[in-house]
Every structure is written in C-alpha cells, then in structure tokens.
C-alpha cells in the first residue's frame, strides 16, 4: 500500500517539475493567477493598532491578512554621540524574523536586503517628519516583520508612519503607500507573497503624502513600457489615498479611545494576534 502511494507521489512530483520547467521556458506566456475572491485592484483586509509597545515612544502593529509587521519608534531622544546636529537624526531599521518567510534555509549573513529596504523606507518617511524641530536628538524607527505574505514594504511604511504619529512626532503629513505587481497584462494591487515571487513581473511601490500631493518614494524594478508605468503609478497613487483614509480613521479612533481611557484612568492596551 505504502509503496504504491510513494510511486504515485513521485510521479506527481515529476509532473509538477516538468510543468514548472515549461513555465520557465515559455517566458512570454501570460501567467494566469487566480486571486481568492479579490479583484485586481482590491486590497486585502487591513488591521491597524497603534500604541501597543509599552516601552516605546510610539508603536503600531499592522496586519494585511497574513502579513504581520510591528513597528516601534524611540525618540526623539538624546544622542549618545555628541555630534553637531542642525536637525534630528533619523534612523530606520527593518528586520525580518527568521521564521517570517517559508524559504527553506534562512541565511543569517545575508542582510543586504534588509539594509536596502530600510533605506527605501527611510527615504519614504524622512520628508514627512519635521526634523528641524528636534535638534541634537535621534529618532529611531525599528520594524520587525513577523510574517511575510507579500506587500511588506507597504505594511512597514504604514506602520512606521502610524507609529511616528503615535509617538507625537511633528509631521507635515502621514505617508501612505501602495504597491503592485505588473504581469504581462494585469496590474495586481496589494500583491501576496506568491504573486510577488512570480517570474517576469514588475514590482512598483509608491509612497505619498496625500495632503501635500507629494510622492515621497517611487521604486520600480522590472521591465515596463512608458504607458504601463504611468498607468501603474496612477493606480498606486489612488491606492495610497485609500490606505490614507484607513490610516486617518484609525488614528482618530485610537485618539478618541485614548481620551476615553484617560477619563476612565485606565490604559490597558491589548495586543491581539489572531
């Protein structure tokens, strides 16, 4: 019984392998990807909660369905080094947990990706913070990716911006962001991990301060025609506005709750990870 199962199993595997090889070969075949009950431009459910790390100045936890990211902000705090600063120093550090992705081997040494993404997030946020208000201090942002199911950058930027707001740092505007994957003929907003790792696709990330109508970050990697780029950027900008409204609503809600809590004189924060 067991033997027959094994044979069957191996056959199945081989077929799969063959299919995959074919897929690789015919690069130009359009890839058909099914989204579960979701249109191309539809976002997944977003859950936001700020102020959950008691030891940080500000913090935010975000869930985009399975993607889970926690961000905490320390500062503005005094700098250990006695450097001359006109404005506050702004640091950003993104880290993946070792179990955040389902890749078999975790490479402890490879942190270039983390460093690169930290830089992109930093660039996206730095324009929104009024650094000149806090001379001789440091604002540190730490982001931890708990579970990666695509769209980590958007989750991180959103969480970081919310955490900055939670910390009470003066800002021009909050930064909303949106990313998409462009296949041959489709533009998929809010991609999942599976969609992000499809071959022959292009990823676009846009971060924006909606109130000032300024794009603070734009990253594209892959090969696209001019018109598609413009189209994708436009779509993402619209996506940013949607995210922004969610962020705004959440911030107002949490502030109202804080005020209420203050009246009741109890501030129990509950971190729930479902």
């Amino acid at each position: 019984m067991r033997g027959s199962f094994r044979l069957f199993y191996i056959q199945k595997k081989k077929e799969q392998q063959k299919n995959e090889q074919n897929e690789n070969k015919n690069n130009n075949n359009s890839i058909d990807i099914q989204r579960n009950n979701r249109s191309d431009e539809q976002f997944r459910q977003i859950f936001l909660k700020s102020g959950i790390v008691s030891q940080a100045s500000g913090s935010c936890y975000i869930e985009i369905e399975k993607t889970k990211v926690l961000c905490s902000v320390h500062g503005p705090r005094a700098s250990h080094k006695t450097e001359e600063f006109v404005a506050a120093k702004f640091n950003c550090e993104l880290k993946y947990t070792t179990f955040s992705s389902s890749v078999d081997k975790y490479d402890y040494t490879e942190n270039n990706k983390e460093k690169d993404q930290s830089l992109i997030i930093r660039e996206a946020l730095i324009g929104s913070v009024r650094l000149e208000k806090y001379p001789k201090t440091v604002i540190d942002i730490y982001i931890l990716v708990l579970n990666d199911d695509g769209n980590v950058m958007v989750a991180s930027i959103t969480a970081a911006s919310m955490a900055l707001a939670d910390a009470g740092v003066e800002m021009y505007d909050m930064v909303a962001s949106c990313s998409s994957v462009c296949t041959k003929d489709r533009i998929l907003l809010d991609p999942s991990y599976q969609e992000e790792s499809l071959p022959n696709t292009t990823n676009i990330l846009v971060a924006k301060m909606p109130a000032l109508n300024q794009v603070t970050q734009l990253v594209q990697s892959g090969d696209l025609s001019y018109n598609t780029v413009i189209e994708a950027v436009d779509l993402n900008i619209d996506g940013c506005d949607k995210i922004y409204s969610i962020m705004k609503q959440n911030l107002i809600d949490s502030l109202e709750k804080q005020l209420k809590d203050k009246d009741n004189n109890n501030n129990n924060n509950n971190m729930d990870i479902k």
Partner: protein
Amino acid sequence: MEAFQKIHPLEFYRKFLQRSVRPDGRSLNDIRKTSISTGAITTACGSSFVKIGNTSVICGIRSEVGIPSFENTDQQTNIFVNLELGPICSNIYSSTKPSEQAMSLSSKLNSLVKRLDIPKEDFYFDQEGKVLWYLYVDIYCLDYDGNIMDASILALISSLKNVKLPRGIIENTNEYYKDTEQLRSLQINHYLFPLSFSIIEDFILSDPSNQEEQLSTSNLTITLNENFEICLLSYSGIKPISETILQESFEKLKNRIEYLKSLIDSAQEH
C-alpha cells in the same frame, strides 16, 4: 507624584511595598494577566504568542532538513532555541550585538528544551532516521516590561506543542520531498511551568515588571514540570536567600500550575 517616582524610584516603591501593594495595583503575589495563542505565523511550522501584562513575545519555529553527523550521537540536539531582545521591545537594547541577558536566557532555554523528553524518532524525516528534522526556535520579544523569562518559557512550550511537521519522502538518496498534506506533531511528554520573582529589599514580588526588575537586588526563576519536579532553578543577586523563602516560592508556583496548564492546553485548541 510622577516626579517622585522618577527621582527616588526605590523610595517610591518602598512606600507602596510597606503597605503590601504595588504601584500598578497588584498585591505582592499577584501575577499579571497572562494569555497564550498559537498558530499566528503561517510561514512557521509552529508558533505562539504570549503576553504577560505588557510583556509580549512571539515565538516561531523554522524546520530544516539535515543529515546527522555520526560522531557522539548522544550529544546531539535537534532543537535550537534563540531569544532576541532587539531594540523594538525596549530602548535599552541595541541592534548591533546580542545583549548578555539575551545570551544567558537563550542558554537556559536551550537546557530546558532537553527536559521535554521528546523522543528521537519524532525528528526522523523518513522512516529510518538517516535524515533528521532540525527545529530552530526563535523567540522575539516585542514588548519588554519585565519577566521575559516566564513569557519565553511559555512561548517555547506552546509553540513546540503547535509544531506540525510534514511527512518526508526521500527519492534517489538525496532528493527530499515534503508531503504537506500529511502533518504530524511532536510527542511532548512534559510541561514547563515557570514563575519568576524579584526581591526588593525584603519584599518578594511575583512576576516583576520592568521597573521592579531594575530596582531589585536579586532575581529568582523557578520552573517545574507537571510532576512538581524542578526543571530549572536560578537564583542570583546581591542578597542571599533563605531556604524558607525558596519553599514559599515553590508553593506559589504549585498553586498556579493548574491554571497555566489549562492556558497552554486551551491555546492549542484554536
């Protein structure tokens, strides 16, 4: 009042402790609300999330397949535990190098894993055990408000109970396949029930908060299993401890075991 707390934290605490109450409203023996949930991380083969008051840790287990080396096989372990106290949980930690505290806790956790008596056969990838599963347990502290030891031990035991390993198939001696439809869990024979105390002057505080830990002269952590056997006892500090206090601490933990057991078990059901 806040200024008093900042300038003379010890004096501030003493005023409270002399009346057998703590600034956060707990009595000396009260333990903060503890909650455990499992399976939140979909990319890990087992995960748990533990919260004691504000302190929260998340624990995920990554599985790797490896061929065991045949030298001193009795020494080998298949589970490696690591605790990360990063800057995300508190501003006292830096991201550049692991703190001594994290290293010391990690080594304690690693020794505790051996107390679970997980049979060797459970790590077999195939039937014969030529190839084994290696589990990497990483515990990340998300919010540090004291008593990280209890939180990480609870996270460790509940995430290990949550582990689901796929059935492995070996083909052509070096091609490994995982059958993700047939999942099995590990056979874990024991529980671990931790409780930590901080001693500030002559007061013994169960489940210390961050500030209580900083003010404390000594720290005591005890871990029992379901047979009331000691799995870990660690006491260190500036003041020596008497036998009677030790005995009292054990009693406190004994009273809590039933509750912890139900917490760990019910977390698995969801």
